[in-house]
C-alpha cells in the first residue's frame, strides 16, 4: 500500500489540527515540574506582605496574547490571593485593553475586588525607558490620571504611592522593546525595585543573563510552558495556559511520532528495494 505524498501531507495536517484542537476543548491537565526561574518569580510574589502595591506592565499586543495573557491572569490572581494591590501600566499602545481583559477574566473569582481599591489601570505611555525613569521620580508626573480620567490623588489605593520606590515588585510581560529590559535597566538598576516578568518562548533566552547575582531580574516566565507551571504553583484549576500547554505537548509528541514514521518509511522502502535488487541478481 502506498499513499501519495499529497495525501500524506493532508493526513499530517488533519491529525495535527485535531491534536491541537481536542486538548483545548477537553483539557488533560498535565502538571509539569516547575523550573527554577518560575519558582523564583512565584516566590517573589508569595513573600511580599499583604497590602503591598505591585505593578503589572502589559508590554505586548494581541499578537503575543496566546503566550502572555495567561501569565498576566495568573500573576494577578496570585497577587490578589496574597492581598496585594495591582497597578496595570503599559509600554505598548494596545496594552491597556489587554489589562482590562485580564481583570475581567478574574472578576468572577474575586467578586470583592474593587477598582481603585484593589486594582487600577493607568494606561499606556510612550517613551519606554525615559518614562520609567520619570516614574521613579514621580508617578503623578507620568500618569496624571488613570484610563478613565480619574485624577491619581482621587484613587484610594494610590494614596501612599508616590514613586516607583513605593512599589513592592514589578512584573513586566513583554514581547519586545520596550519591555522587561527597560524595566530592569530603569526600575531595578536605578531605583532598586525588584523586577520579574514573562516573555514569549522565542525571546526568553535573551533575558536569562539578567537573572544573576545582582538580581537584576528575579525569575522569568518563558512562554506557555512557564505560564502553565505558574498556574500549577498557585493551584489554578483549568488555567488557560495549562490547557494550551496540553495542546503544545500533544503537538510536540505528534511531531516526534511523525519523524519516527518518516524514518520507518524510508527504512522500509530501502529494505524492499534491497530485496528486489537481490532478487534481480539471483
Amino acid at each position, binding site marked *: 500500500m502506498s499513499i501519495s505524498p*499529497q495525501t500524506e*501531507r493532508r493526513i499530517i495536517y488533519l491529525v495535527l489540527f485535531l491534536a491541537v484542537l481536542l486538548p483545548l476543548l477537553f483539557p488533560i491537565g498535565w502538571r509539569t515540574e516547575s523550573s527554577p526561574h518560575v519558582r523564583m518569580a512565584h516566590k517573589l510574589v508569595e513573600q511580599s506582605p499583604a497590602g503591598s502595591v505591585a505593578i503589572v506592565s502589559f508590554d505586548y499586543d494581541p499578537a503575543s496574547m496566546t503566550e502572555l495573557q495567561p501569565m498576566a491572569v495568573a500573576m494577578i490572581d496570585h497577587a490578589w490571593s496574597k492581598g496585594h494591590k495591582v497597578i496595570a501600566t503599559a509600554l505598548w499602545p494596545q496594552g491597556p485593553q489587554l489589562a482590562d481583559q485580564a481583570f475581567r477574566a478574574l472578576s468572577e473569582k474575586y467578586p470583592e475586588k474593587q477598582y481603585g481599591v484593589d486594582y487600577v489601570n493607568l494606561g499606556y505611555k510612550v517613551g519606554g525607558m*525615559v518614562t520609567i525613569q520619570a516614574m521613579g*521620580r514621580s508617578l503623578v508626573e507620568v500618569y496624571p490620571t488613570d484610563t478613565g480620567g480619574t485624577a491619581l490623588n482621587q484613587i484610594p489605593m494610590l494614596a501612599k504611592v508616590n514613586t516607583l520606590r513605593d512599589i513592592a515588585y514589578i512584573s513586566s510581560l513583554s514581547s519586545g522593546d520596550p519591555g522587561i529590559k527597560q524595566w530592569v535597566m530603569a526600575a531595578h538598576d*536605578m531605583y532598586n525595585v525588584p523586577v520579574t516578568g514573562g516573555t514569549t518562548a522565542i525571546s526568553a533566552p535573551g533575558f536569562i543573563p539578567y537573572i544573576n547575582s545582582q538580581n537584576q531580574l528575579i525569575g522569568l516566565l518563558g512562554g506557555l510552558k512557564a505560564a502553565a507551571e505558574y498556574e500549577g504553583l498557585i493551584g489554578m484549576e483549568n488555567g488557560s495556559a495549562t490547557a494550551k500547554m496540553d495542546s503544545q505537548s500533544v503537538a510536540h509528541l505528534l511531531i516526534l511520532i511523525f519523524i519516527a514514521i518518516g524514518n520507518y518509511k524510508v527504512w522500509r522502502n530501502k529494505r524492499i528495494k534491497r530485496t528486489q535488487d537481490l532478487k534481480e541478481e539471483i
Partner: protein
Amino acid sequence: MRSLGIFCLVFMLLGLALPLMGEASFEIKDFPHDAGTALNLEWKGASGSTVTIQKADSMQVFHELHQSTDAEGSFTDTELSPDETYRYRMIAVSEADSVSQVLEAQPVEQWFYLDKLSFLLMLIVISAAILLYIYAAKRGKDLFVRRINGLDSMDEAIGRATEKGKPILYVPGISDLDDIQTIASMTILSHLAHKAAEYDTDLIVPCRFSMVLSAAREVVRESYLKAGRLDAYKESNVFYLTDDQFGYVAGIDGIMVREQPAANFFMGSFYAESLILAETGFSTGAIQTAGTAQAHQLPFFVVSCDYTLIGEELFAASAYLSKDPQQLGSLKGHDFGKLLIILLILCGIVTESLGWSWFKDFFGKVF
C-alpha cells in the same frame, strides 16, 4: 569656539555651601567623548554617610536623582542637551554632620568618540584589505575562489524549467532596498535573468516594495538587453504585490500553485514566512534554491529546499557567478577579515586567560 575646550568644563560654586565639616567632596565632570548628552557626578570621602544627588527642574525645584551609601562613587546623568546648564545638589548626610553643595555644569560635545577607536581601526583595516584585493584583481591577478555548493545547481534548475516549458520564480526577499541582502539578491537576479533570456524561459519576480520593484525591473531589463533578447522581456512579469508581509506571502503561494514554476529561487532577507514559501514550493514539486543571511531562517530553508546558500555564501554567490574581478577581489578581502577575526579571537582568549582585560576592553568599549 567653545567646543575647542574638549576636556575643559565650566563649573561654578553657587550658593553658600555648608562649611566642609566632613571629608566629603563633590565634583561634576563632562562625560568624555560624547555628543554632549551626559555628565558624571562624582563624590569622594563620604564614608559612613548617605549620598543623595538632586537635580533642579525648570522651576528650580530639586528632585532626587540617585542615592548611595558608598564612600566613593559616581553617577552618570544622561539624556541631557549639549551646552545647556544643569544644576545639581549633592548632599552627604552622616550621623555626625551633613555636607551639601550646589554645582552647575554644562555637558560639552566632542569631536571624536574615543571609545570607537577600535571600531574605526577594524573598519579601516578590513576596508583597506578589500580595496587592495580589488585593485590586484583589476590588474589581472588570478584569484582563486573555491566552488560554492548549490550554485552549480542554478543552471540545472533553469535547464529543467526550460525543458518543462514552465516559468522560473524569483523572490528577492521581503526587505526593502535598504537591506544589503536585497542588493546582493539583485546581483544574483541579474545573472539569472541573463540565463533565462538565453534559454527563453519566463522569469516571474514578485516584489514587496516599490523601490525593489524599480531596481528589479532595471536589472532584469538590462540582462535581457545584454543577452540580445529585449523583445522577450515582459515588464508585467516583474510586479508589485503588497507591502504587507503575509499578504505578500499569500500572493506568492497563489503564484506557485497556479503557475507551477519549475524552479523557485528565494534570495535575500527572509523572516518567519520562509517556511511557508519553501513548503508550498516543495508541494508543487519545484527545484528550490534559497539563500539568506538571516541566521534564524536558515534551518527552514536547509530542511525544505534542495540547495541553500548559508550566510555569507549569499554575498559570495554573486562574485562566484559573475567571475567579475572586482567582486572576486572583494570576496578575498572578506576572507582576509575572517582570518583576522580568528586571530583576534585567539589573542583575546589568551589575554583573558592570563587575566589581562585591556585587550578585550579595547574592542568591547564600543558598545
